[in-house]
């Protein structure tokens, strides 16, 4: 096996190490949202490894990098604008503020 670039093997080893880390850390009780923050942080690190070394994104032409960035930008818009609704809305109604609809017997569903 000649000519296998070591950087690819190291990338793979790092990805596997991060997989083991995220799996192990998931079983450790942590305060608040720390579990999910760590898990997503590790996912971002893994994704960056794949993007940078396997997909060679950061050595790609500017136009290509712009296309990739546009995907993330619109994803951020999707989440941010949706958050303006969901983060400012109570899941459970504070009181019954609605006009009668004739379908009140269904309100116990959720």
């Amino acid at each position, binding site marked *: 096996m000649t000519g296998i670039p070591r950087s690819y093997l190291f990338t793979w080893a790092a*990805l596997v190490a991060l997989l083991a880390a995220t799996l192990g850390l998931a079983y450790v009780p942590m305060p608040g949202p720390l579990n999910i923050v760590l898990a997503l942080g590790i996912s971002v690190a893994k994704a960056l490894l794949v993007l940078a070394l396997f997909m060679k994104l950061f050595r790609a032409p500017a136009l290509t990098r712009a296309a990739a960035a546009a995907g993330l930008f619109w994803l951020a818009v999707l989440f941010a604008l949706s958050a303006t609704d969901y983060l400012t809305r109570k899941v459970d109604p504070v009181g019954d503020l609605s006009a009668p609809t004739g379908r009140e017997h269904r309100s116990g569903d959720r």
Partner: protein
Amino acid sequence: MSEAGPLPRPEPQYATAGQQAEAAAFGMWVFLATEILFFGGLLLAYTWLRASHPEGVAEAGRHTKVVIGSVNTLVLLTSSLTMALAVHAAEQGRRKALTRLLAVTALLGLLFLGLKGYEYHGEWTEHLVPGLNFHEDSPHARTIELFYFLYFLLTGIHGIHVTIGIGLIAWLALRARHGAFSARHYTPVEVTGLYWHFVDVVWIFLYPLIYLVGRSGP
């Protein structure tokens, strides 16, 4: 073992073969950007569900098969390595290595789908399939049902992507065997590689969201 090979003639709208290859990679990245948003809507639904019903999602997460999920993550990460090595072999015009590495990548993809199918079978027998046989005795049953609804949508759509990738890569392997690629012309290998790595990246995010949620709980 083909050496440099003949220089492919670019299509009429391109000045050089290099410009044509660049445009192909750019086109794939534009497609991948739309794919981010395609999965993004479902991930937003997941975020909403998890933020509104954290206990239910945690309980649902503990129903998932973490061993299969983790092994499958390893399988996909490894297939990304073999795909990257395949592109590297193509760059150097090593035909045999290219054919073998593409075949290994496709086989790893098949292994992923096989394990996924086994997992789906387990979920069927445990009555976790919303709309078909869902049954759960828990105060969080409705949340668990929604979680599994998103689970089947996300992993199902991801599985379709993996299936398409396997088809493309198997086709490339056949063409590579017949010497269709050379160090001067391997754009299809490179572009399919981008697609395959992207499918891997999607799984990298699905893995903790599906399999690791709630593991530190009771």
